[in-house]
């Protein structure tokens, strides 16, 4: 460190502190005028403090900023971490750049360390100038590369933690070295080492986070593709059935025309034709057409997969949704989980039954949306209270968490109700979701 006399040092610290404020302005998004006003108010005491003790200055500054921003953070927690990130970056630049600039200046002007330089009046403004220049350049680079790119909050937290640790180390080492009267080149080497190490760490963190994100996106895309494929396969199957139907129908009509002699129509045959067409339309070709009314993607995907699966298992599956549904007043994740559990239970029970029927109906009334899942079952139905108890299952141990899970999910929710009933071999679960305020 270049030694300069007290007054110049004071000026240097003053301008460095001003530089810090400017960095904070650049690297955080704080526009509150009162914030900067308060900082300026305490400028003088802060400078005095920084002249004597760097570590304490850093601590006091951080505490001060936190105190000033506390109210805003309480109102809008989202900005908290990005502002802390900016603050830590500013402090990092503020503590490191002067160190390096002094080294640079001393090298360029051929000065000696630990020797008082009192006869060069341009020295201090030069130092200040270099500090400012370097800081602003670094700040702008950081701003465009890092801050402008919106980083997810989780990642910002990780970076803040690393920066915090880094700064702590820098200050600690600075203090220790100063106490031990080790100055000069050793201090610079120490700090360079720390900077290098933490840069590497942060960079590797960034790489890892990016890789994780990509992995997550990829698996989500894969899941979507599976659903799309199932849906497409179902549509294609439908199309085949439609073609068969068109072919048969044409033949039937032709036959009708040729058997008709005179004016009497073969009533029997006509009824056969009508029955056939109704059978095809209602139960075969268009049986899942209601799915197009369900406009909520995750639910649609879930139903497509579950219904197709149930049909593959040989069950007779009915689905109805007569009116377009765009919004359900229940968190989608919860709804998907609940429906998943209910449908799995229904399919399992239906498989064990002779009739093998699973029916899913979505009904919209004025005040509610009802999802009704029905299945045939065999034998005696166990009591509902036993079914809901955790740990109960007729599929063996470790499986009985379904219904009690649903209860846990719905426990706090006043808008949603799940009821069950069974009648003549059909077990029905009715999920009623009110259309009131959202939950």
């Amino acid at each position, binding site marked *: 460190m270049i030694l300069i006399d007290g007054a110049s040092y004071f000026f240097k610290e003053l301008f460095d502190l001003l530089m810090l404020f400017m960095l904070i302005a650049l690297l955080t998004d704080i526009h509150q005028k009162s914030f900067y006003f308060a900082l300026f108010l305490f400028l003088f005491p802060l400078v005095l403090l920084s002249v004597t003790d760097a570590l304490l200055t850093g601590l006091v500054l951080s505490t001060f900023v936190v105190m000033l921003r506390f109210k805003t953070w309480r109102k809008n927690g989202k900005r908290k971490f990005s502002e802390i990130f900016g603050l830590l970056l500013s402090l990092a630049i503020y503590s490191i750049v002067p160190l390096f600039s002094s080294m640079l200046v001393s090298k360029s002007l051929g000065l000696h360390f630990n020797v008082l330089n009192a006869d060069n009046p341009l020295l201090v403004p030069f130092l200040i100038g270099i500090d400012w220049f370097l800081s602003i350049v670094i700040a702008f680079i950081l701003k465009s590369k890092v801050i402008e790119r919106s980083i997810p909050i989780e990642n910002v937290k990780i970076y803040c933690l690393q920066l915090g640790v880094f700064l702590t180390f820098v200050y600690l080492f600075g203090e220790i070295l100063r106490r031990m009267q080790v100055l000069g080149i050793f201090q610079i080497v120490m700090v360079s080492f720390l900077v290098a190490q933490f840069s590497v760490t942060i960079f590797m963190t960034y790489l890892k986070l990016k890789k994780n994100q990509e992995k997550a996106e990829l698996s989500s895309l894969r899941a979507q593709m599976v659903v799309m494929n199932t849906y497409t396969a179902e549509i294609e199957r439908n199309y085949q059935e439609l073609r068969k139907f068109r072919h048969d129908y044409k033949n039937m009509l032709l036959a009708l025309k040729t058997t008709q002699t005179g004016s009497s129509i073969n009533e029997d045959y006509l009824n056969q034709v*009508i029955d056939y067409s*109704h059978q095809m*339309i*209602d*139960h075969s070709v268009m049986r899942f057409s209601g799915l197009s009314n369900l406009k909520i993607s995750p639910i649609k995907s879930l139903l497509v997969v579950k219904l197709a699966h149930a049909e593959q298992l040989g069950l007779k599956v*009915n689905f*109805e949704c*007569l*009116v377009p549904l765009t919004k359900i007043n229940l968190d989608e994740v919860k709804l998907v989980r609940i429906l998943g559990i209910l449908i799995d239970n229904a399919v399992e029970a239906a498989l064990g039954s002779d009739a093998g029927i699973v*029916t899913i*109906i979505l*009904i919209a*009334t*004025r005040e*509610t949306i*009802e999802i*009704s899942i029905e299945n045939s079952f065999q034998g*005696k*139905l166990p*009591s*509902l*209270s036993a079914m*809901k*108890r955790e740990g109960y299952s007729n599929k063996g141990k470790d499986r009985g968490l379904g219904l009690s899970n649903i*209860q846990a999910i719905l426990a706090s929710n006043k808008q949603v*109700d*799940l*009821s*069950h*009933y*069974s*009648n*003549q*071999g059909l077990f029905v679960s*009715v999920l*009623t979701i009110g259309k009131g305020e959202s939950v």
Partner: protein
Amino acid sequence: MTLPIILCEDDIALMSHYKAIIENWIMINDYDMRLVLAATDPAEVLLYLSQNQLTNSLYFLDIDLGKQLDGIDVAQQVRKDNEFAQIVFITAHQELALETLKRQIAPLDYIVKDDRNEKIQIETVLDGRHQQVFVDHRPNDRHLSFMIGTRNFRVDLTAIYFLETSVTPHKVILYGENMMYEFYGKMNNLEEEYPELLRVHKSFLINPNKVTAVDYKSRTIFFPEEYSCSFPLVKAKILKKHFDRIGSIIHK
């Protein structure tokens, strides 16, 4: 009391046609029924409902899903005000397959429009109503009615085994012949409303006529289909008194 009948069909020719069938059949058989409203616009029906208090009633409603779901709206409104109104849907063949309608509105029957024998279908419905309401009467047959979601249910008391409180708060479970229902209800209210049922436990309300056996040692009551419930010591006396009076239950 005369059974009021309401007809709603938006094709005016058809509407008159049905009106004639209904009124003729009532007249020929001298049924205690009257067609009080024949409308083409569902709004008229709703207006009539808001102005008149109807209890027992019969509705013939046209459902044509090709247009807006007006028929269903009317049916829903009717159901809301009068849970056990008898609704007959007049529909084209396709709507018969609709499970949604069956659940939401639980219609009494369907009149299929494109069939040639609409007349006979309507007459059958009227016959059925006459039989049920005026001939069979059965005033002693009480029902327990409740709602699950937006659906109404009415269960014959004679088919109920017992009710128990559910682990879900504020709900009770009803067990009966081949059936089980879980719905919102309070044991105390149900006990009051249906004195035929016996409150043998804080959580159990039983139909004594359906009890197959009582074991006083283990304090268990048995029902068909392997159902059972327990009762506390304090109720043992009440049970004994009740069954001694009936004298037809085996107890150990």
